[in-house]
C-alpha cells in the first residue's frame, strides 16, 4: 500500500489499528511500517508457557518488565492427565512465585475468557502465547497471538516489534435471524477468505454492530486467526462499556472507532439476515457448508465449550434446546464452561442441571478436548461436532477421526438427533 502521508503531517482519517498504535508510539503509523511498541498485557498458557519461561531465562534478565501485567494460565491440560504435564505445571507455578506474575491455576478457565473478563482493556496491545489471543479484539484491543520466544521477549523487555498490518473493513449489516450466532458469522467470513485470505492483515468489523452482542463479537474475534488475520477488532462502544461494567470494571472503558474515511485495503459486506447455520467440515475451518445440507453426518461426540463458545450465553442457548430432552444413544455430550465465573453463573441459572439431565458430562473450566490433550479423545473413525475453533487433521487427539465445527445451537440440536442438524428444527 502506498503511504500517502508526508512526514510530520498526520493523515486525518485512521483505522482502529492505526489509532491504537499511534496512541502507544505517539507518532504517525501506517501499514507496512515496522515499529517497536510497548505491550499492555502478556500471557502464556501451559502448552506454550514452559518454553516461554525457558527462553526468558536465556535472556538473562533479573525480572519481568511488568510482572503485574504478565499472566500464566493453566488451562490446556487442566487437571493434568500426565506426569510430564504436571511437571510443566510445577515449573510454571515456580516461575510465578519467583517472578511475581499472575497465576490462574487449574479450574479457573481458558486464558482468553479470563483475559476478557478481567484483564483486556479497549485500546490495549495484548500479546499471548496462543493463537486465539485475538479474542480480545472484541473489546477493541489490538490482541494477537505469538510464539513462546516472542512472548519471552515481550515479558523481558515490555515491548516487541510489529509490522503494522493493513486493515480490511468488514461491514456487518442488518440483524441476525433467530438461531443465528456469531459462530455462523465468522464461519461465513472464514469461508469467504479461505484459510489465509487475510494473512498478515487486520479485520476491522463495523456496520450495524449495535445488533451484535458482546458474546457474539467475542466468537467472531476469536476466529479471526482462522483466515490468517493478525487481529479481528470491533469498535469499543456502549456494548463494550456495559460488558466491562457488568464485570465490575468501571475504569477500563475507552471509546474506539475508526474514522469515516479511513483507508482499507478491502471493504466487504456481510448481510446478517442472509446468514444461515454453518458447519466447518473436515479438515479445515474454511471448508464450510450449511448445517441443513449435512443431515447424513452421524456423530459420536459433541463438544460444547472452548474460548470460542464456552460462555454463559452459549451454554444457555444449548440448554434451551436440550431442556427436557436426551442426547441420542451412542452420542457423548461433553460440556466445558470457559471459566469459573461462567460455571458458577450457569449453575445459578439451572443451566448445568438441564445439561446434565440431558446426558452431558460437565468438566472443569478449561480447554477441554479442543486440542487433543484429554477429556474426550476420539476413537478411530469417530466423528465429532465441536463448538471450538479448529477441526484440523488430528486436532482432537486422533488423526483417524473427523471434526466438524458449529454454533452451540447447532451442536445441541445435533446431540439430540445424533446427526448434524439445523437447529431451526427445534423450538427455543
Amino acid at each position, binding site marked *: 500500500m502506498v503511504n500517502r502521508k508526508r512526514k510530520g503531517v498526520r493523515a486525518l482519517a485512521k483505522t482502529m489499528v492505526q489509532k491504537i498504535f499511534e496512541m502507544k508510539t505517539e507518532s504517525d503509523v501506517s501499514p507496512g511500517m515496522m515499529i517497536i511498541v510497548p505491550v499492555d498485557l502478556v500471557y502464556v498458557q501451559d502448552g506454550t508457557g514452559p*518454553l516461554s519461561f525457558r527462553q526468558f531465562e536465556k535472556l538473562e534478565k533479573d525480572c519481568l518488565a511488568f510482572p503485574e501485567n504478565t499472566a500464566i494460565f493453566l488451562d490446556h491440560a487442566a487437571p493434568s492427565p500426565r506426569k510430564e504435564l504436571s511437571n510443566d505445571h510445577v515449573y510454571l507455578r515456580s516461575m510465578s512465585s519467583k517472578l511475581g506474575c499472575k497465576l490462574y491455576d487449574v479450574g479457573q478457565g481458558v486464558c482468553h475468557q479470563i483475559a476478557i473478563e478481567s484483564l483486556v482493556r479497549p485500546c490495549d496491545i495484548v500479546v499471548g502465547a496462543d493463537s486465539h489471543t485475538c479474542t480480545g479484539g472484541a473489546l477493541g484491543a489490538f490482541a494477537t497471538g505469538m510464539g513462546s520466544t516472542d512472548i519471552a521477549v515481550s515479558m523481558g523487555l515490555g515491548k516487541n516489534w510489529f509490522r503494522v498490518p493493513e486493515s480490511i473493513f468488514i461491514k456487518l449489516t442488518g440483524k441476525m435471524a433467530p438461531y443465528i450466532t456469531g459462530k455462523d458469522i465468522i464461519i461465513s467470513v472464514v469461508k469467504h477468505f479461505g484459510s489465509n485470505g487475510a*494473512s498478515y492483515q487486520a479485520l476491522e468489523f463495523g456496520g450495524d454492530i449495535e445488533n451484535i452482542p458482546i458474546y457474539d463479537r467475542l466468537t467472531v474475534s476469536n476466529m479471526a486467526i482462522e483466515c490468517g488475520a493478525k487481529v479481528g477488532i470491533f469498535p469499543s462502544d456502549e456494548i463494550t462499556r456495559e460488558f466491562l461494567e457488568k464485570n465490575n470494571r468501571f475504569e477500563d472503558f475507552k471509546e474506539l472507532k475508526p474514522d469515516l474515511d479511513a483507508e482499507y485495503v478491502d471493504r466487504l459486506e456481510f448481510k446478517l439476515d442472509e446468514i444461515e447455520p454453518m458447519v466447518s467440515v473436515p479438515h479445515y475451518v474454511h471448508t464450510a457448508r450449511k448445517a441443513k445440507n449435512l443431515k447424513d453426518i452421524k456423530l459420536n461426540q459433541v463438544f460444547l465449550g472452548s474460548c470460542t463458545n464456552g460462555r454463559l450465553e452459549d451454554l444457555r442457548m444449548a440448554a434451551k434446546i436440550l431442556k427436557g430432552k436426551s442426547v441420542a444413544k451412542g452420542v457423548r455430550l461433553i460440556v466445558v464452561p470457559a471459566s469459573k465465573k461462567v460455571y458458577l453463573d450457569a449453575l445459578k441459572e439451572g443451566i448445568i442441571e438441564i445439561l446434565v439431565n440431558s446426558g452431558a458430562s460437565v468438566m472443569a473450566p478449561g480447554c477441554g478436548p479442543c486440542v*487433543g490433550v484429554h477429556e474426550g479423545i476420539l476413537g478411530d473413525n469417530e466423528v465429532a461436532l465441536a463448538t471450538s475453533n479448529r477441526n484440523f487433521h488430528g486436532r482432537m487427539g486422533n488423526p483417524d477421526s473427523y471434526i466438524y465445527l458449529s454454533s452451540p445451537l447447532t451442536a445441541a440440536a445435533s446431540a439430540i438427533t445424533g446427526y448434524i442438524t439445523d437447529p431451526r428444527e427445534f423450538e427455543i
Partner: protein
Amino acid sequence: MAISGRVIKVSDNISTDHIIPGRYFHLRSDLEKLSEHALEDVVENFHEKAKGGVILVGGSNFGIGSSREHAPIVLKMSGVKAVVAKSFARIFFRNAINIGLPVIIVDTEKIFDGDDITIDLEKGVLREKRDSYQLKFPPLDIRIQSIIDEGGIVNYIKKHGDISFEM
C-alpha cells in the same frame, strides 16, 4: 548465507497440528523426544528422512494454526535447514525467524520431492543442482535477516541488549 539440501515436499495448508500433533502435548518440555514425531502424520518416517539435513518445501499457507513454537523447533531439530513455501501463516513465520530457521517465500510449483537445491539468502536465489530451474525471491528485510543471522532473537538481544530498528 547459502543453504543446500535435498527437498522433502509437502502440500498446501500444512498446519502446526500436522507438524506436531496435540497428542504429543505432554512431550513439549522434552524437545528431543517431541522431534521424533515431527510431521509423522504427513510424511512417513520424516524424522529419519530429515536426519543430516533437508529443505522442507510446502505450498501455500505453511504453518497455519496454533502459535506453538515447538513446530519450527522440531523441524529444525529434525534436520530441516530451511522451509520454502508459496506463503506462510504469520505466527509460524515469526516463530521460525525467532529461532533462526530460514523461511523463504517463493513459488514452489517447479520444486519436486527429492530435488537437490541451493538457496542463497542474500541474493534471493534458489537453484536446482543441475540448474533445471532457478527461482528468485525478495530477500528478507535486513533487520529481520539480522535476527536470523544471530541464530534467533534471544541471541540477538543478548548481543545487542535490546531490540532496536534504528539503523
